[in-house]
């Protein structure tokens, strides 16, 4: 049969497109590198080993939160309560660690409970969105109010220092390397493992076309709930990092981070409509957000213009992320 090479929609994937199809996070990586370079140009000091470690330990929480968000976005859902889950876990573990004396055992036990809280919140979200079929944006906004109330109940006012052992470990070094590097390494391993699970493929299939996935015989409700569970889990991990970086509990700490996590996911080239994306992209997206605000400052932007320039830069990069992401997928 004669081939019709001119038809654009049926075109075989070409070089760059093929590459993007395989590694959809490449544009995000490029943006991060450019921003790092700009940072270096305006303030050479900001590329020092120490500064980069600092960047990582500060933004590790947002990175994890963005990854949390990615798993629900895979399935075409969204979680506007991720930041409140982070706050809730943050205050819960800090209060528990203090109550149990702040020893190593107490810390570990509190962390375990923190994970359970994250999972429980994820379960609530998954239940209301997937099982009760409420619209994700508004339902998770409602649960976010609820979780914030809970966090305020547990810790009515920011304070309560975390045990020294905990935050010294997070901010310290192990065998000569900063601890966050180990976290990053562990994260990479965890993400690789997760990317090979059936759940990841199933989440993406559900995100592609929910009805089709159901008709195929996938347990769609259970899969979406698992997505929210993963989101809760990673939000709890993000809470650990923020607790490590801030050494305290604050019931409002995550409030502003939710929308940033959504932005990070988009910056990373994932499609908010589901079915397409990578967690690595979201990781890079979170770094992008951090680096933009640094660049805006190091460029010497007058303080009253900083917000505007930053907002504009994020908008532009968001557009770039979306446009590049679209090139990659069918």
């Amino acid at each position, binding site marked *: 049969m004669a081939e019709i090479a001119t038809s654009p929609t049926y075109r075989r994937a070409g070089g760059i497109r093929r590459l993007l199809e395989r590694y959809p996070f490449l544009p995000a990586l490029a943006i991060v590198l450019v921003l790092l370079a700009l940072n270096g140009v305006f303030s050479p000091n900001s590329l020092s080993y120490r500064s980069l470690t600092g960047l990582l330990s500060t933004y590790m929480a947002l990175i994890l939160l963005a990854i949390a968000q990615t798993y629900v976005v895979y399935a075409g859902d969204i979680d506007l309560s991720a930041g409140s889950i982070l706050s809730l876990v943050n205050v819960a573990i800090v209060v528990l660690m203090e109550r149990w004396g702040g020893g190593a055992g107490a810390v570990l036990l509190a962390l375990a409970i923190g994970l359970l809280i994250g999972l429980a919140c994820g379960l609530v979200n998954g239940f*209301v969105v997937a099982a009760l079929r409420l619209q994700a944006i508004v339902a998770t906004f409602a649960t976010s109010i609820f*979780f914030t109330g809970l*966090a305020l109940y547990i810790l009515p006012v920011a304070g309560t220092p975390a045990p020294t052992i905990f935050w010294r470990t997070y901010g310290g070094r192990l065998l000569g390397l900063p601890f966050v590097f180990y976290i990053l390494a562990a994260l990479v391993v965890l993400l690789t493992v997760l990317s090979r699970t059936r759940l990841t493929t199933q989440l993406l299939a559900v995100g592609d076309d929910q009805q089709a996935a159901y008709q195929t015989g996938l347990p769609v409700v259970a899969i979406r709930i698992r997505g929210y569970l993963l989101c809760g889990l990673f939000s709890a991990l993000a809470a650990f990092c923020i607790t490590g970086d801030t050494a305290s509990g604050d019931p409002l700490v995550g409030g502003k981070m939710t929308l940033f996590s959504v932005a990070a996911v988009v910056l990373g080239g994932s499609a908010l409509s589901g079915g397409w994306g990578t967690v690595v992209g979201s990781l890079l997206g979170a770094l992008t957000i951090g680096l933009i605000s640094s660049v805006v400052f190091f460029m010497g932007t007058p303080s009253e213009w900083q917000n*505007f320039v930053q907002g504009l830069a994020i*908008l532009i990069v968001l557009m770039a992320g979306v446009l590049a992401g679209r090139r990659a997928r069918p």
Partner: protein
Amino acid sequence: MSRITSFLRQPIVVALILIVLLLYLGELLSPGFASGAQILRLMIVASLLGIVAAGQNVVILGGREGIDLSVGGVVSLSAIIAGNVMNGADGGILPAIAACLLAGAFFGLLNGLGITLLRIPPLVMTLGMLGVLQGLLVVIRMGIPSGQAAPALSRFVTQPLVLGVPGIIWLWVAIGILMAFMLNRTVFGHRIYAIGSNEHAAYMAGVPVRLMRIALFMISGMFSAIAGLCLLGYSGSSFANVGEQYTLTSIIAVVFGGTSLAGGKGGYTGTMAGAFLLVILQGILTTVNIDESGRQMVFGATLLVLMMFYGRGRAMRA
């Protein structure tokens, strides 16, 4: 019998029943809550939210994941512009209205262009625009004095105008009638539903999809601008971030009104009821004497329960 149940299932009817129930509950919990004067005052607050929600409503109806997260930013911006243009003088009201509408339309246009020409998802585009607007507010406030509402505007919003009812409520009712007419009886309205339920089919049937969508975001910007102007009248002077609270509440009001976030389904009458419902709920929670943590938990949980009445997604197995 089935007629009655299907009547009772209409979102607007559900919302009205819930409104009556909530008012009754409010009166039980704190006597005086459901007095006529208080209901009017609640309606003033609801009308501000309702006007923002009108724009949100058309954007959502237009489909393709339509949503406008920048409404809060436009409301704030418009309040500041209005305050500075009128600066306490009644004569400045008309120029202020023009300036606000222009600003609202401009940012709506930017949203619309990004969404149609670059095909950025609305959530992303308007979220980014919100960040830009917040930044712009800082810049503007550094450069200009923030002004005062004109007395006539304040009176319009807070004082009885006709039949003991403040002007803003009449304005809201007028907007409600206008929206109902537009959505049901105009070609433009039918085209909103058409692009909301099947954009491609609408395109193939000659609907100017891009122009429509840009228009919807401009309408949203302009409604937010009107709300910002009224908010200035309500609070007397403009200040930073006044509009912030409207971003997500306007979406909830639309959802409570029975409009599907998927687009193409719903209307504004329900949204009006939804906005009122939300304001009553917030009002009850303020007057009940419990801890803030308790208030938030009750608010969050109540929102979830109320959502059970509305627009639940279809079961996958029909």
